[in-house]
């Protein structure tokens, strides 16, 4: 159970250079990915990332609702990111707020950059991300979960989309901030990478960084994304490999 905001700034970096949870600056929190966790959805995934718990479901390609959003030359990708009332220390009022609408938009656009939407004209591919327990980095965890759910739904894509946030704690660039680091840190920079092309399809930033720090953050983030990418592929293999008889796919 979390505390209602410690009033004092905790020691974010030990003299040995270790973070509040004992991680090194370039170390990720533990990540566990399960694919195909829901019964109704066409594709689904559950991601436990540090103390984050995020579920994603994909429905489609299916009829477009509302109808006027339909496009004659491609599928529309509709993403909804939502946070459960009990996912944070202080209860969040249920329903849409400006933060979740913005996150839904940037995540949806990230997927539009990789999904072969022109294969499915006049349809909708609906992505639902539910944050059940939050501890900083939920949009990245949501993106990873959604990416796995899209793959599980068999939607053709250029690539999976690993994502991670880089930040600044106690003046140092650090990978994958947890809540205390996010609350008291000096910068937060979430990103999503297309591993094949090495390009970023989601990028946001808030805080203070010098030009050098930003360059260093981007490099660290890409490195983090590549590590997460391996875990994502591993989770897909776990779900879909048929064992020694059929050979693994």
């Amino acid at each position, binding site marked *: 159970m979390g505390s*209602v905001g410690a009033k004092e700034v905790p020691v974010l970096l030990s003299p040995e250079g270790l973070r509040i949870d004992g991680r090194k600056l370039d170390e990720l929190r533990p990540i566990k990915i399960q694919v195909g966790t829901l*019964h*109704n959805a066409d594709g689904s995934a559950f991601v436990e990332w540090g103390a984050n718990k995020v579920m994603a479901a994909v429905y489609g390609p299916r009829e477009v609702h509302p109808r006027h959003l339909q496009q004659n030359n491609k599928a529309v990708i509709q993403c*909804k990111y*939502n946070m459960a*009332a*009990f996912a944070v*220390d202080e*209860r969040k009022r249920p329903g849409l707020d400006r933060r979740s609408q913005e996150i839904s938009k940037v995540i949806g656009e990230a997927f539009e950059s990789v999904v072969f939407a022109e294969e499915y004209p006049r349809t909708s591919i609906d992505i639902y991300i539910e944050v059940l327990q939050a501890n900083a980095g939920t949009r990245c965890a949501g993106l990873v979960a959604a990416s796995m759910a899209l793959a599980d739904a068999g939607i053709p894509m250029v690539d999976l989309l690993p994502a991670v946030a880089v930040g600044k704690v106690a003046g140092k660039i650090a990978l994958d901030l947890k809540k205390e680091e996010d609350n008291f840190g000096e910068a937060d920079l979430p990103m999503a990478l297309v591993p094949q092309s090495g390009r970023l399809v989601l990028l946001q930033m808030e805080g203070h960084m010098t030009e050098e720090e930003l360059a260093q953050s981007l490099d660290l983030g890409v490195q983090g994304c590549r590590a997460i990418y391996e875990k994502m592929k591993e989770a897909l293999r776990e779900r879909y490999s048929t064992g020694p008889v059929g050979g693994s796919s």
Partner: protein
Amino acid sequence: MSEEVSAEILTTHILDLAAEGKRLDGRGPDDYRPISIEPGFVATADGSALVRIGDTAALCGIKLEPGKPFPDTPNAGVLTTNAELIPLSSPTFEPGPPQPGAIEVSRVVDRAIRAAETIDLTRLCVTPGEKSWVCYVDIHILDHSGNLIDAASLAAVSALSHAVVPAKRFEIAEADYPLEVNHYPIECTFVRLGDTIVVDPTFDEERAAQGRITVATDEVGRVVAMQKGLVGAFSPDDVKDIVRRAFRHGEKHRELAKGVRA
């Protein structure tokens, strides 16, 4: 084949089977699907439980926060129940404000918890007229394969059963303590399929149903809430039989909810 046509064919099949006392998934009319409860699923909540009934999944998180009692009940805390039928859980749900279905689930769950005096609300009062605990019961339906009311209410009762009052965190008492739970209301839902009344309907059975009844019972032999839903009718004898069956199922499910006590 359109969704409507396949649903129609399935409905006919479900009704044909029911006439012989059979069900699509092989259960008998009075067989409940397997239930699992995972208490403490959400660490940010003060109490939580993930309940699965077959392929249906409901997650409940309890949040306790200091607030103000209502003017007409100055000596009591506040209990609010809210269910979200999020679009992740079913191809038929859309984003947006709560639909009547979600509101019905919230209200039927709320009614059973309230009427059974699951929580003694006066114990949630800190300073009469000024300060009391507000107990939020938030339910997220994650997978909709029928019988949402039973899943939501079992999740809610299990989460309450597992909840700890964060009194230290809010500087109201020296230490946190488990939430007092006095009664364990258990909701049990039935649908009519022709002349057969089956317990714990699946999504397809609900769509084929000619009426639905939920009965909430507690451990001291009281019926504490009922709700008839969907289009269809029941005779008083049907209802008496349903109540008898609800008590029997309730006893078993109550032990599961009690088993997660914090």
